[in-house]
């Protein structure tokens, strides 16, 4: 009984990896057999080797670290502003009237459409990339924070008030935890979006970062490094999503959906 449960749990952990593993096997097989031109698509082993070489020279870690720091700082700025604005408009009707329609108007601008303007404003240095990431991550966090606060159960707020809670304790014990599931959804969206924007920003103008690694490799026809960069972005995106899900599981333990 328990042995069977163990195998089924192991199976549940391994099963999602089955299809990726098969694809990589087929890919390697086709590349070794000469079915795929290595200039079009290098074999998985070649990509792995490129990664090993770059790691050995220290290049890989340098670019990875810089991209990671850019994404996190940009997200911290954008998400922070989004959270603050969402809290302000969610908690006060007057601020909502004052600010919400403006924010919604700016939200409709695609961040990538700002690139020419951003280059004019900031040139091609760090702040241009941070601005793009911050701009893109602000709105998912803003909308979900605002919506989360507005959808907090009014009955719970009434109950808490009748038990003497107001001000900061009311916010800390009732409103913020009630809005948290929605806020975390916004954070997950924003993290995913942060990487997309960073790829574009780093591809256009950078001398460091994974985007630079890819663009530079393209100049020298190093397809293996280009593919490696793409995979690195995928890994980073997956890792940040995993962190967000970890936060959900930890902070939303009470929620039946996370038990």
């Amino acid at each position, binding site marked *: 009984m328990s042995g069977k449960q163990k195998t089924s749990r192991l199976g549940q952990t391994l099963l999602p990896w089955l299809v990726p593993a098969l694809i990589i096997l087929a890919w390697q097989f086709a590349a070794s057999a000469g079915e795929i031109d290595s200039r079009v698509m290098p074999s998985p082993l070649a990509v792995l080797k490129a990664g090993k070489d770059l790691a050995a020279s220290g290049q890989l870690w340098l670019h990875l670290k810089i991209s990671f720091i850019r994404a996190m700082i940009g997200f911290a700025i954008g998400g922070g502003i989004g959270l603050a604005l969402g809290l302000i408009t969610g908690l006060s009707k007057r601020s909502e009237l004052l600010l919400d329609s403006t924010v919604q108007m700016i939200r409709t601008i695609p961040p990538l459409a700002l690139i020419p303007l951003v280059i004019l404003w900031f040139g091609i240095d760090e702040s241009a990339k941070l601005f793009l990431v911050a701009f893109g991550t602000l709105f998912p966090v803003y909308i979900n924070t605002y919506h989360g606060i507005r959808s907090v*159960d009014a*009955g*719970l707020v*009434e*109950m*808490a008030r*009748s*038990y*003497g*809670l107001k001000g900061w*304790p009311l916010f800390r*014990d*009732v409103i913020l*935890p*009630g809005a*948290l599931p929605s806020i975390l959804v916004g954070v997950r969206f924003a993290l995913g979006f942060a990487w997309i924007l960073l790829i574009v920003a780093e591809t256009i103008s950078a001398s460091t970062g994974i985007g630079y690694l890819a663009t530079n490799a393209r100049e020298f026809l190093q397809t293996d490094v280009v593919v490696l960069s793409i995979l690195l972005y995928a890994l980073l995106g997956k890792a940040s999503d995993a962190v967000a899900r970890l936060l959900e599981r930890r902070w*939303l*333990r*009470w*929620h*039946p959906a996370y*038990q």
Partner: protein
Amino acid sequence: MNAPFTVNGVALQLTGVGKRFEQKTVLHELDLTLHAGEFVALVGRSGCGKSTLLRLVAGLDQASAGLIEADGKPHNAAKNDTRLMFQDARLLPWKSVLQNVGLGLSGDWHDRAVAALAEVGLSEHAHKWPAQLSGGQRQRVALARALIHRPRLLLLDEPLGALDALTRIEMHQLIERLWQHHGFTVLLVTHDVQEAVALADRVILIEEGHIGLDQAVELPRPRARGTATFAALEERILNRVLALPDIGALDALPAATEPIVPAALRWAL
């Protein structure tokens, strides 16, 4: 005979209390006296104003007219001596059962919360989340949350409306026992005439914002529902509730050829 063993409740005096929402008058200059430690049930059709009256006493809404006094002084529900239980338990889902009971308390409330949970028989569930409890257990947590404040006036707004019949009877016994032990004054709003007769010293019928009936229930406690006097009293009140036709409900009924059995209508009120 019916009085609680210890009396610790407030005496509540409502004089000319009225409530208007814009053009609609929900309560007309209502006078009502609750003695200290008395258990009073408010019954009536949906929309008769009984819940509005309770919300006024709870301080959730402000009366448009009249005076609410507790022990001869203007009633201030914000003080710790008035506690309200809602139809839904309204527990904070992100706090454990124990933390919910201690809501709004400062200092070292842990032992008091444990004791309050023991009073409602939920000690072993202290560290669960509210989502892991049944509906009846959640209402018992809400009751413990009210009790920990040592209320002198307990307001119950159809707290058992969503529970099944068996759980409801268990809750009746629990509420009666806690009332006798703590001696607070109780004002219970309910749709269920049988519940009102089983629990209350007095049953008050609210009709269109007026008091339609003020019926003392002088049955010995604990009350057995099967007795003839219980049934007669229940039927008398129920007939009085039904005496004033509910226009909407009558329109909805087909031409009534069968006699209406009051007992069958109890849940429809």
